């Protein structure tokens, strides 16, 4: 009995310590990255400029969806990188989140438009359906499915470590 107690008295704290040591030493890759795969939810919204109706059927192929808004300060910071991606031929669909149409259009005029098209999600309904918690967020889409989702500003480092990795692994061409 005493022997068991003596062993336990060391073993239990040791396990706890070893666990925390391991956990602390672990390399915490990006907490904003989410690699769950799911279908783009069905939606019925309008295009930002033309106000024509849009739905899932209008989106095809491989592209990015970028959630942005004119009130979002970080989006301005991210914008330069998005332009660079767009200039390199990467298709980006904008999801304008909880924004007045006129504010959004003015913003794009002022900072230039990197988007192939922009979905105007005034109520944030599509955004909510996709698990968006704010702006900016970026989704990687392939064949109607989300294969990567990043919450936060995308820059060169995150593009490489999060998105390029998934692009390579799934062998898609953007």
């Amino acid at each position: 009995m005493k022997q068991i107690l003596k062993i336990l008295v060391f073993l239990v704290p040791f396990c706890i310590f070893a666990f925390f040591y391991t956990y602390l030493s672990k390399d915490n890759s990006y907490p904003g990255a989410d690699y769950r795969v799911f279908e783009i939810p069905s939606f019925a919204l309008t295009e930002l400029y033309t106000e024509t109706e849009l739905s899932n059927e209008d989106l095809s192929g491989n592209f990015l969806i970028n959630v942005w808004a004119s009130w979002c300060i970080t989006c301005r910071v991210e914008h330069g990188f998005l332009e660079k991606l767009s200039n390199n031929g990467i298709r980006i669909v904008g999801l304008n989140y909880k924004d007045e149409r006129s504010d959004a259009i003015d913003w794009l005029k002022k900072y230039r438009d990197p988007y192939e098209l922009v979905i105007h999600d005034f109520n944030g309904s599509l955004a909510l359906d996709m698990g968006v918690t704010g702006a900016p967020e970026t989704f990687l889409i392939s064949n109607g499915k989300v294969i990567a989702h990043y919450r936060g500003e995308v820059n060169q480092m995150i593009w490489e470590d999060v998105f390029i990795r998934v692009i390579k692994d799934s062998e898609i061409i953007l």
Partner: protein
Amino acid sequence: MIKIALSFLFIFSTNLYSEAYYEFDDIENEARFYNLIKEIRCPKCTSGSLASSNAPVSEDLKKAISQMIADGKSDTEIKNYISDRFGKDTLYDTPVEPNTYVLWYSPFIFLILCLIVFFIRERAK
């Protein structure tokens, strides 16, 4: 007598619910709502439930939940809707599944083991 009182409450309360910000058609659904928002984690906050958060996404989720309750969805369906989109960690009510058996059952196993040891030693006296 009780029936009359209850129906009075029902009539009286239907009036109230339509003026409330979240609309429910009975007390049970309203109670379900408040229980749900306490058990669902705010996806944007460091920690805290939807009930304790006024972040925009929390407000949107609360509206969505009240809508889903009105649409007749069950608690499980609502929780699945949210965890599918925002991650399993949005559920403070940790699901009881093979991966979490250790969590849910180990305290009871520990209790039983300790009690067994205790009573064996008592017997030995």
